[in-house]
């Protein structure tokens, strides 16, 4: 029997750290009153350290008890961007440890349904970002900024590394203060507090405005439908999207393009 504890679990907010929390719950037969990172709080806390040995063991146990589907469900749902997600994930894990691999398919069960919803939220947002990310091209490297609800970087890295295998690029997640870095086969997700991109060059400005022009021209005025646009592309994504947020400066753009053409011809 698990008993409710008045303690909060304090951990490093990583998935591995969370696995150690689950381990501790099972060992002490307790359900903590909540989870927190290293922020200050008035509650009494139990500090859970991320221990490599425990992590390996927990991964092994969870993979075999939850099945590979169950394990990936858990790790995907962990990326959900909500402050109190851990308790739901913990309850689901305890339920699944008890039930075995079939737990994942019991979608009528409230715990399973909740975790599946969380996973769906994460995967949907990650899929949106495959298309909605906008890179700035500096010639030698690409950079992008995103402001997602969920921690989607681990879910989009394979796609972009595969797509731009020869490029050096950085995707900065402003919400979670982390960045995905890629440089000739080296790939990392690292904590990063702030990132201020360099000034875009002329070519970059040209292509931004060309795309903006394209975006306007491709729409059919007779079919204008703002509601549909808003449903498919919610406003929260637009802050970092060239076609909505780029404001060309006062220098005339055709001047710019003529200038670039001349430069190209002379070289």
């Amino acid at each position, binding site marked *: 029997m698990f008993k409710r504890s008045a303690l909060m679990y304090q951990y490093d907010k990583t998935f591995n750290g969370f696995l150690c929390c689950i381990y501790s719950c099972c060992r002490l037969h307790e359900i903590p009153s909540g989870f927190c990172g290293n922020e200050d709080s008035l509650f009494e806390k139990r500090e859970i350290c991320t221990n490599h040995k425990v992590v390996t063991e927990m991964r092994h146990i969870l993979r075999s008890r939850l099945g590979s589907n169950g394990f990936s469900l858990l790790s995907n749902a962990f990326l959900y961007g909500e402050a109190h997600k851990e308790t739901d994930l913990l309850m689901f894990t305890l339920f699944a440890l008890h039930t075995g691999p079939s737990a994942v*398919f019991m979608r*009528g069960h409230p715990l399973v349904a909740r975790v599946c919803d969380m996973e769906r939220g994460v995967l949907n947002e990650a899929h949106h970002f495959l298309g909605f990310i906008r890179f700035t091209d500096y010639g030698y490297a690409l950079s992008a900024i995103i402001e997602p609800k969920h921690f989607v970087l681990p879910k989009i890295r394979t796609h972009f590394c595969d797509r731009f295998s020869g490029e050096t690029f950085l995707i900065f997640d402003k919400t979670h203060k982390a960045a995905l870095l890629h440089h000739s086969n080296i790939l990392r997700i690292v904590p990063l507090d702030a990132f201020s991109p360099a000034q875009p060059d002329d070519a970059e400005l040209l292509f931004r405005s060309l795309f903006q022009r394209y975006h306007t*021209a491709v729409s059919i005025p007779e*079919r204008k439908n703002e509601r549909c646009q808003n449903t*498919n592309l919610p406003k929260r994504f637009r802050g970092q999207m060239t*076609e909505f947020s780029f404001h060309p400066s006062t220098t005339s753009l055709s001047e710019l393009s003529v200038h670039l053409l001349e430069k190209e011809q002379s070289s």
Partner: protein
Amino acid sequence: MDIFEKLTILTDAAKYDVACTSSGVDRGGAPGTIGNAAACGICHSFSADGRCISLLKVLFTNACVYDCKYCLNRRSNDVRRAAFTPRELADLTIAFYRRNYIEGLFLSSGVFKNPDYTCEQLIETLSILRNEYRFRGYIHVKAIPGADTRLIDQLGLLADRMSVNIELPTSEGLQKLAPDKTRQAILKPMGLIHNRIQENNYDLVQYRHAPKFAPAGHSTQMIIGATNDSDLHILRLTQALYHKYALKRVFFSAYIPMQSHALLPSLDTKPPLLREHRLYQADWLLRFYGFHAEEILDDEHPDFNPILDPKCNWAVNHLDQFPVEVNRAPYEILLRVPGIGVKSARRIITARKNGSLDFGDLKRIGVVLKRAQFFLTCRGKQMPHLKFSTDTIIHALSGQSLSPANSDTAQLSLFSESSPTKEDVQKCLSGQL
């Protein structure tokens, strides 16, 4: 002419093409190349009309030697003409692609000089992309009817998807409005592409590295509402095209009047968006739900019901086949229940393996019951407190009442901006069904 103007003119001329999907081929990246393609397709943006922007959709040129009445690019029309050079267009595509603006290129063209010359220009553009930039992203190209077989063949080896627009649902319509084109001339390249895809499948079985011909298949598009054809006729044609040419998609495009001509609908005609939407719904039923055109419409009812979508309409006319038991009904039957789509049906099949389901379970696994509740039982019981009559069903399915007092206004209002259900409108107008 600077690149801004070119892009504006050639995008403007291409925007009525509806096929903007980037789906159908899964191709990973490779060292020394740029790009990949995802089978599910990726939307990169949405334009003000709510449609997905996935590809850079442009014409190579809007100059054309033909004179199709419904087309803005026709020879006799006085518009500004522009043309890209192959290099310009390839560079632009790559610049957009690297910034993740697009998933690839959708290239179509007016007929410049003659079909062969036009085709050669398209080939050159795609060759620069594929061979010079080593671009592995998505390319959709329009085959130019009348071009040499050898050229169509080359084009298909460079593209992921090819399409030939069938333009109008009947050959009489074609004769009237597009005097330079014949049904035969359109079907010929379509047949050719179909055969090449078939041969290629055979080649690929034998030699794994045989070059791929249009691996994402081919599609077509027709204009709805420029001629007087019944919905049944269009649907039958669609079905026949799927069968005969194994098309991946048939797209419909509501006719938007842009020029006055005695043979065309008058300029104040509203584009038949609801009709287009119903066609997409019916097309979906043909492709994924195991329906036949003749089940959806028949000679007595050759046009769609404006109030009910085709699936609900079928169900309301076949109430004797309902309700079905959630815990026993086979997959194909679940699919026929209004409100249950492919995803929900699959979820039900998976979930019921672990015990029988009730209405609460259905909600939790994400089945929307608003429509489905009338057609289902769980463990032999109907949804509690369900009011069951044809009128309540139609009310729930369409979001409107059939009472004579407002049926006229209800029908009329369908053609204004706000149509039956929110979801319908959204999908209709985005052409995403």
